[in-house]
Structure formats: C-alpha cells, structure tokens
C-alpha cells in the first residue's frame, strides 16, 4: 500500500518537475519525427509490395507513435547508468522504497503528459492520411492486453539491460548497442512482414516487437489477432521478472564492489 502510494506521490512530484521545464517537455515531442519519417518511406513502397497498402502502413506507424511514446527504454537504461556513476543510487537505496522503481516516475510522467497532444495528433493524422485500421472487438481486446503486458515486459527487459552498467565500467557502448536492437526488433524501422523470413520470426518472438510493433501490425490488419500474443508476453514477463529477481541482488553487490 505504502509502495503504491509512494509511486503515485513520486509521479505527482515528477509532473511538477515536467511542467517546470517546458523546453524539455517540448523537445520530447520531436521523438515523433522518427516514426513519421519511416511512415513516409514505407507509404511510398507499400502499395507496390503487395504485403501492406499505404493506408495500412499509415495505421501501423500511427500506432507505433503511441507505443514508442510509452516505451521508456532509453530513459531507464541511461537514467540507471547515470545514477550509478553519480552515486545517486546510494541515496535511493537508503529509502524504504525499491530503488529500481524510483527510476520510473520521471520518464513515465513525461510520456503520460505527451499523450495529451499525441491523442490530438493521432486523430488528425488518421483523418489526413486515411489510415486503415481494422478493429473488431477481439482485436481491440488483444490490443489492450498487448499494450499493457507489452509495456511491463519492455520495462523489465530494459531494467535487466540497464544492470550491465554495473559490470562494464564504460558502458556507453553496450548501452548504445541497445538502440540498434531496438530500432530493428521493435518494428520501428519496418513492420515484421517486410523483413526477411527469419528476421521477421525473431522480431515476432522478441518482447520489443510485442511491446511496440505488435500492436501496430494487429490494428492495421497485417497480423491475425490471436491469444498467442498476450500469452507469449505473459511468458516473457514471468521469465524477465524471475531473471531480474535473480540479477538485482547480484547487481547490488556489484554496485558495492565499484565502491560508489
């Protein structure tokens, strides 16, 4: 109970910090440029491909706009690394609150605030681009589950990735490597159906695709809605949570070893 109340209080605090620094909040909106640029590219190629129409790729990338906005990978990974290097993690470890959770409120609140202008933008773009969404009740149900479980799985995955900062002294390289995986596997560069067969399969099995691109392919009608999507995310969540539970105490011992 105290933990949930603490998280809410922390989010409230971060909302004040977010509104206090308007420029940072506004700059965050420019993150939309990347999915929109890929959308423009694939809209040109899509109609000739016979796999997806331009209206479907529009729908796909509009969903990607939403899921990437809520994806907090960079903030978690680099936020954790910076707290390790500055020693701020020590202060967090001495609070009666899980230190890993303390990294979440700032980027989450920023993302939630950006959702307001994003909703308006999505409505306008859907109309302007004539985006072709194919939504049934079952599709909507699977999409909601995918969004929720996908977000949790991606946070757990990024927490695990962030812990590498404790084993590798100069971890910028390995943290930067994350973005290579993320751009390809999440479906940001292209929908999985445009990828070579084996890569498409790898993408569809990864939690990054299930959290980001999966919902886009589902709502644009490229992938048939099926229970396997939320179920495989559930398996991912269980596995990642177990791995994090195993890795976290070791990471803390490692934090001690580097003596900050």
């Amino acid at each position, binding site marked *: 109970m*105290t933990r949930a109340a603490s998280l*809410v209080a922390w989010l409230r*605090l971060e909302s004040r910090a977010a509104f206090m620094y308007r420029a940072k909040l506004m700059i965050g909106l420019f993150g939309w440029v990347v999915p929109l640029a890929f959308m423009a590219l694939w809209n040109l190629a899509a109609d000739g491909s016979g796999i997806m129409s331009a209206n479907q790729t529009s729908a796909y990338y509009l969903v990607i706009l939403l899921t990437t906005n809520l994806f907090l990978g960079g903030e978690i990974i680099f936020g954790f690394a910076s707290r390790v290097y*500055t020693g701020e993690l*020590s*202060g967090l470890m*001495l*609070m*009666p609150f899980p230190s890993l959770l303390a990294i979440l409120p700032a980027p989450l609140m920023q993302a939630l605030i950006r959702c307001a202008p994003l909703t308006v933008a999505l409505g306008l773009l859907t109309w302007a681009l004539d985006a072709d969404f194919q939504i049934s009740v079952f599709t909507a149900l699977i999409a909601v589950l995918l969004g929720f479980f996908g977000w949790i799985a991606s946070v757990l995955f990024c927490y695990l990735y962030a812990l590498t900062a404790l084993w590798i002294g100069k971890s910028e390289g390995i943290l930067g490597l994350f973005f290579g995986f993320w751009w390809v596997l999440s479906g940001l560069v292209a929908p999985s159906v445009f990828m070579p067969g084996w890569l498409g399969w790898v993408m569809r099995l990864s939690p990054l695709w299930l959290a980001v691109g999966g919902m886009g392919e589902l709502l644009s009608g490229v992938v048939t809605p099926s229970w396997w999507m939320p179920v495989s995310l559930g398996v991912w969540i269980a596995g990642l949570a177990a791995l994090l539970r195993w890795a976290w105490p070791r990471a803390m011992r490692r934090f001690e070893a580097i003596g900050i």
Partner: protein
Amino acid sequence: MISANQVVHLEGVTRTFHVVERTTGFVATVKNFVHRRYKSIAAIQDINLTANTGEILGILGANGSGKTTTLKCVSGLLTPSKGEIDVLGFIPHERSVNFLRQIAFVMGQRSQLHQDVCVLDSFELRRVVYGLELAAYASSRDELVDLLDLASFADTPVRQLSLGQRMRCELAAALLHRPRLVLLDEPTIGLDFEAQNAIRAFVRNYVNEHEATVLLTSHYLQDIEALADRVAVLAAGRLVFNGSLQDLRSLKSDRQVLSLYGDDIDLTAAPWASLIACDLPGEINIEVPKREAPAILAQLSALPGVRGLTLADPPLEAALRDLYARTEEIKHDPSS
C-alpha cells in the same frame, strides 16, 4: 556482547575491494587489456566500534582512511567482507524497510533531494515514502524549517540553492522521519563559518531533543570539538584511537608548543631546529617536551630578531598529526 543502549556495534569489520590494477604506458596498457590483473584493497580492517543512544561519535582520519566506508557499512550500503555489524538490532546490509525507516545518511558531497522541484515538494514525497502521519509530518517539518531557518527558500527549486542552503535542506529532509541513527558524512564541507555553526548547533539540539545517535565524519576539527562526545581515529583503514576528546588531547600532554614571533630568526644551527612543527612568515612553532619548555623559552627569548614568545598546550591537530602519520607505518607493516 551487545549492551542494551548500544545502537551501533561493529566487531572485527573488514571491507575489501577487488580492483583492476591500472598501468601506465601503451605497452603495459595493451598487456593489461589481454591479461587483467586484480588487486585487493582493504578499505577498512578489523574495526571494533560502538555507539550508544544519544551519543555523537566523531570519526576522523586522513583522506582514504576509511571513514566513509565505515559509515556505508553501518548504513547497509556496503556488506562487510568480514566481521559483524549490528545496528538498532538489524543487519544493515539486508536493508529491511524497518531498518531504513530508523536511519538517515547525509552525504555532504552528494544530494538526495530532487533537484528540479521545490524543497517542500521533496519533503512531501519523503512523507509518503516513509509513511509518516500528516500531523506528525507537519510538526516535524515546521520544526525543522524553523530551526534550520529554511522558510525564505523552502519554495525554491533545489538546483537554485546555494551550497549552505542546500545542506540545511538535506539535513532537514533526512530528519523528517525522526531517525534514531543519523550518519553525517562531512556535513559542513565547503560551507562558510556561519553555515557551519548553524549546522553544528542544530545537530547538537537534535540529539538532545530526540536522544538520537550520530556518527559524524569531518575534516573540520571544529565540528568534532563542538559536537563529538567520543572520537574514533582511522589510519589506513585501521582504528588507531577510540576515546574522548580529552584522551585524544592527552596523547600530547607531555608536549607544549612554543611560538616565536619576529623577523629573520635563524634556528638552522640551533638544536631546536628538528623540533619545528610549523614555519610561517614571521612565526615559528616549536614542539618541545613540557618539562624542558621553561628552559628553552628562556634561551630562545635571547635570540636576535625575536619580538615575542608564547607557550601553549598543543592543539588537537598535533595529536591527530601523529595518529595520521601511522598511515604510512601501517601500509608498510600491516601488523603494526
């Protein structure tokens, strides 16, 4: 055996770090890249220390002597490599919620407040995280704001505060939940003398009011002299002194410091040259055996160029200097 009023109990505590041996030169660096070599560094070794309810224990030592490592072990940030620690009946490194609710650790060189929001907003967050009742929180907050004189900048974002203002806020934030054990790691570092005095007065007052136990490290002897009931001195990770300030001073009770004032005083050929403890422009300080002081005083007053002389008991620094000097001795011969 832990007595009833003992809040902190360290027994044979050692903390070792394994670090990569870094080398200089390109070839050596490449060799090191292929074949890593590690070495063990004992930050603290075989420390036995206690602190009782309502006591302020000052921890002194040169840079790298293990003061902060000791506090980190007590707070639970570090797990000891050897030995046992009991703090308020808990094993610190397990960092149980009930333990964390009863301690506070203020690090002078590291902020624990949210930099982007107002001070009072950070306090409010701590209220929820520490599960404080609204009434208890309000009374505690108002008292701290009043005692530390925070009212004029309590609604300012932390990043806009001066160092002195920030330190007072850090202290207030750390004490909102009325911790039974307060760890202060150089709380007055970089502060002007007024801010230092304010923090010293506040800490003394807090201990008297709440019977809290304080472990304090500082490079400023004034902090220790003003606050500490007892002093522990560390040298090269070992406890080389544990006693009262009086006991520390008495380490030098057989010596006195003779200060000569004047220009062009030439002592180089005199037998007291080896006793010079400090040579400043226009002032020479000589540490002499107490029983020989009157005779030496008489002889020195006759020297040409001497305009004045004073004789005093050695300052606390003199005793510490001797203890710190043991660092090299311990490094060369750890069994000493």
